[in-house]
């Protein structure tokens, strides 16, 4: 049956609206929804799973079983797991729900689930707590859950993001095998990732469905691609705050020196006797498959990993474990990651999120200066969010939140900037903006960058040191 949206207007709880959508998805069609960050791509795909409150118009023939994979769905499940831990009173350490339960509870098609677990090689994860998985690992679990639910419609919102190269190509081969059984609607930020079986592309802007293009209409297809490649404006990085002093470092000494470091959980060894030295003004790219320990390695440097105290680590002149406080270390580091974004569940203003970068806190707990407010507003202007300083952070789209967190990390011009998959979940235009920003930071001499990503095409001019984990 044809899914039919007629002059459909729908509201979401953040006040966001999709307006007057006219759209038909016929049996046998497969759609990609594209557009800029915050345009309503995810919202439009979520409508197919019943999200939002109808204001006017109609939506008909929605299938009963809809499988959904999205960052929102992933974040929701993780938030639910974290909440279980938050609620834990007094003296019990919650282990969290094991992956096996997440996948197999209410599973319509356990055979498919088992088959996918084998294809993804996830057997080793089944008994681990879901919330302890890495970003990429938990993404695969969500994917298996949706694929194994016997859906009539699959909604795949940025499904390729956060997967390592091996998993990505496996999935790219697997999805076409579903194409003649299940209707698929994908949200994709990259044109170059649109699979062959996709028959139509929808372009969303400001909550409206502006263009619908057949895949085989080459001219319109190319124009749509152009539209997404709007030129970015000239970038000028806002100045440093003269009152927020980061102590001078000895430029002859490396920023970071890891000597034969290891990370072990019980009998399981994640990293074994690794050496890594980062000199001032060196830029590094760190890569490796999901679960290879990239984030754990970085958190040894930031001090967020408890085993930083049992390894030989010198950061910014401090030999770890000699009475230094974690805030003395963090003042030298700017940090962005998906996990940080999930942690940043606070209803504070955009301006305060940027200012919190001066204090290395999540949320703002200190009185800030006028100068800091001014610098924050300059960063917002740079990101195309001028005049939105007082809006709440948690109402921003996923991609806009990321841009803001990068500004937060850079606001103090730290000697070391760590970008853990900074482009995850961003559309083409914002990805270009972010990459241009990172190139600019690399070109200046004051900040060294560690850049983690999966995509070889996201390479950055100026980065010429590489560390690959296995």
């Amino acid at each position, binding site marked *: 049956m044809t899914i039919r949206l007629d002059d459909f207007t729908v509201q979401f709880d953040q006040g966001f609206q999709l307006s007057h959508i006219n759209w038909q998805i016929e049996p046998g069609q497969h759609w990609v929804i594209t557009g800029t960050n915050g345009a309503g791509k995810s919202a439009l795909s979520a409508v197919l799973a019943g999200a939002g409150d109808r204001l006017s118009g109609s939506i008909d023939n929605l299938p009963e079983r809809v499988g959904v994979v999205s960052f929102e769905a992933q974040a929701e499940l993780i938030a639910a797991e974290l909440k279980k*831990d938050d609620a834990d*009173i007094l003296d*019990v350490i919650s282990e969290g729900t094991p992956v096996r339960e997440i996948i197999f509870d209410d599973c319509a098609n356990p055979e498919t689930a088992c088959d996918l677990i084998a294809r993804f090689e996830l057997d080793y994860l089944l008994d681990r707590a879901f919330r302890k998985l890495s970003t990429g690992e938990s993404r695969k679990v969500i994917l298996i859950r949706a694929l194994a639910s016997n859906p009539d419609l699959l909604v795949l919102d940025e499904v390729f993001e956060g997967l390592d190269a091996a998993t990505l190509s496996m999935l790219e081969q697997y999805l076409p095998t579903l194409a003649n059984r299940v209707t698929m609607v994908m949200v994709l930020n990259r044109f170059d990732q649109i699979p062959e079986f996709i028959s139509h592309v929808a372009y969303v802007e400001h909550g409206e469905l502006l263009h619908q293009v057949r895949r085989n209409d080459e001219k319109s297809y190319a124009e749509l691609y152009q539209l997404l490649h709007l030129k970015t404006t000239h970038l000028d990085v806002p100045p440093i705050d003269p009152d927020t002093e980061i102590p001078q470092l000895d430029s002859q000494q490396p920023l970071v020196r890891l000597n034969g470091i290891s990370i072990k959980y019980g009998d399981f060894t994640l990293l074994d006797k690794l050496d890594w030295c980062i000199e001032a003004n060196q830029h590094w790219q760190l890569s490796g498959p999901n679960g290879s320990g990239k984030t754990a390695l970085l958190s040894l440097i930031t001090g967020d990993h408890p*085993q930083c*105290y049992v390894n030989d680590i010198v950061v910014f002149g401090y030999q770890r474990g000699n009475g230094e406080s974690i805030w003395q270390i963090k003042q030298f580091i700017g940090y962005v990651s998906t996990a940080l974004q999930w*942690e940043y569940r606070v209803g504070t203003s955009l301006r305060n999120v940027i200012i919190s970068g001066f204090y290395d806190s999540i*949320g703002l707990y200190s009185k800030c200066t006028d100068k800091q407010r001014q610098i924050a507003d300059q960063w917002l202007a740079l990101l195309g969010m001028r005049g939105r300083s007082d809006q709440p952070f948690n109402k921003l789209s996923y991609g806009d939140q990321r841009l803001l967190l990068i500004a937060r990390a850079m606001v103090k011009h730290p000697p070391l900037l760590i970008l853990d998959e900074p482009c995850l979940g961003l559309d083409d235009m914002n990805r270009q903006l972010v990459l241009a920003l990172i190139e600019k930071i690399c070109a200046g001499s004051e900040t060294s960058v560690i850049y983690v990503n999966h995509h070889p095409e996201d390479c950055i001019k100026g980065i010429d040191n590489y560390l690959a984990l296995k």
Partner: protein
Amino acid sequence: MSNNYFNSLPLRVQLAELGKCRFMHISEFPDGVAALKGKKMVVIGCGAQGLNQGLNLRDSGLDVSYTLRQAAIDEQRQSWKSATENGFTVGTYEELIPTADVVLNLTPDKQHTSVVNAVMPLMKNGACLSYSHGFNIVEEGMKVRDDLTVIMVAPKCPGSEVRAEYVRGFGVPTLIAVHEDNDPNGEGLTLAKAYAFGTGGHKAGVLMSSFIAEVKSDLMGEQTILCGMLQTGSLLCYDKMIEEGVDAGYASKLIQFGWETVTEALKYGGVTNMLDRLSNPAKIKAFDLAEELKGIMRSLYNKHQDDIMTGNFSSTMMADWANDDKELLGWRADTAETPFEKMPAGDMEISEQEYFDNGILMIAMVKAGVELAFETMTAAGIIPDSAYYESLHETPLIANTIARKKLYEMNATISDTAEYGCYLFNHACVPLLADFMKGIKSDVIGRGLSVDDNGVDNARLIEVNAALRSHPVEEIGATLRGHMADMKKIV
């Protein structure tokens, strides 16, 4: 049997100690962790409090290690794994206690006597022993060696939150105290302040209190409003809804998540805000029900406070401890068998506002419980600041555990003293409210008021609003939440 320390004191001292509780300004912590710098801190126990406090203290630049009983080490129990995986040194009492400058006793109350008796002979001369709850000193009369300094540092949140807030760059409200009988060098307060700073507590607000005020108010709060009232209310409200023909899944869900939802409003704006979330007719209804409940339950609240003050409560509980927790474990098993506990929450959607509209009686119970606990504590000489933290402030935290996995979970995870108190309260309160419950219909629990319009009498509404806003718990609440808001902009 042990000697009750509180009862050994003259009335003058008892009153002075009960009245101690002062909110400390962040400017009173200029020296940070300096007093503990380079000293060896050894934590006994690696549960949620032990582990998370230790992680914070280490990240603040302090030297932290863990001591466990030989058996826990040999069998590589969870506590051993937690400490080891987090990169801490772990050793037996004999190995680590003699090297310690500060020993942090973060074991459950019930183990305190045996733990302290085991470690005290091993502690070096002039060292410091720290508690996070004063029961062992105040109720069991533990005599600590004269040369040792005894302090208390008690974060007023679950261990997981103690860590999460620190990592964000903030902290949780923390109560500190010095045991006056054991402060030979006069350094107790300095050490307690440095310790609170190391856990991040200074950023969220430190309350300077006494062992006695902490114990007598903590016991009262946890057994009446916090656990007792929510337990009793859950069982009575559920049974009433079933009797009235409300769908069982709906009734189960309304209660399991209702406490959390309505007390969230309490956390932000006190009892006033919680009732302001109701329509005017519903607000007046809730107010009247709460007044009636207060009338019925006041004697029970008084009895609990009296038993806590005389030591009768703790001696009864210790007798059950000595009897292998027979009463308590039997009751815990009974709770698991109640209809509310056995009925899973339905999968219907209940909006945030609906929890208020259809849970008028639950709101009345929270109001009555909070106000009674506060009134009873302050009448017994506990000052309003303490009484506020031990009643209103902690209610949402407990409501949270019910939302997670209902009453059995709440009782299994709260402290042993809280659970025993809850048991006593529930036993007395259910029959006490039997007649009251006969007059209750589903309009105040389960379905919401069925009124044609929301009109109310002006004079009556003004009267109710004034009574709500002028209650003493609201006055102190506004002041203390003001302190918090100054520092924690994001709340």
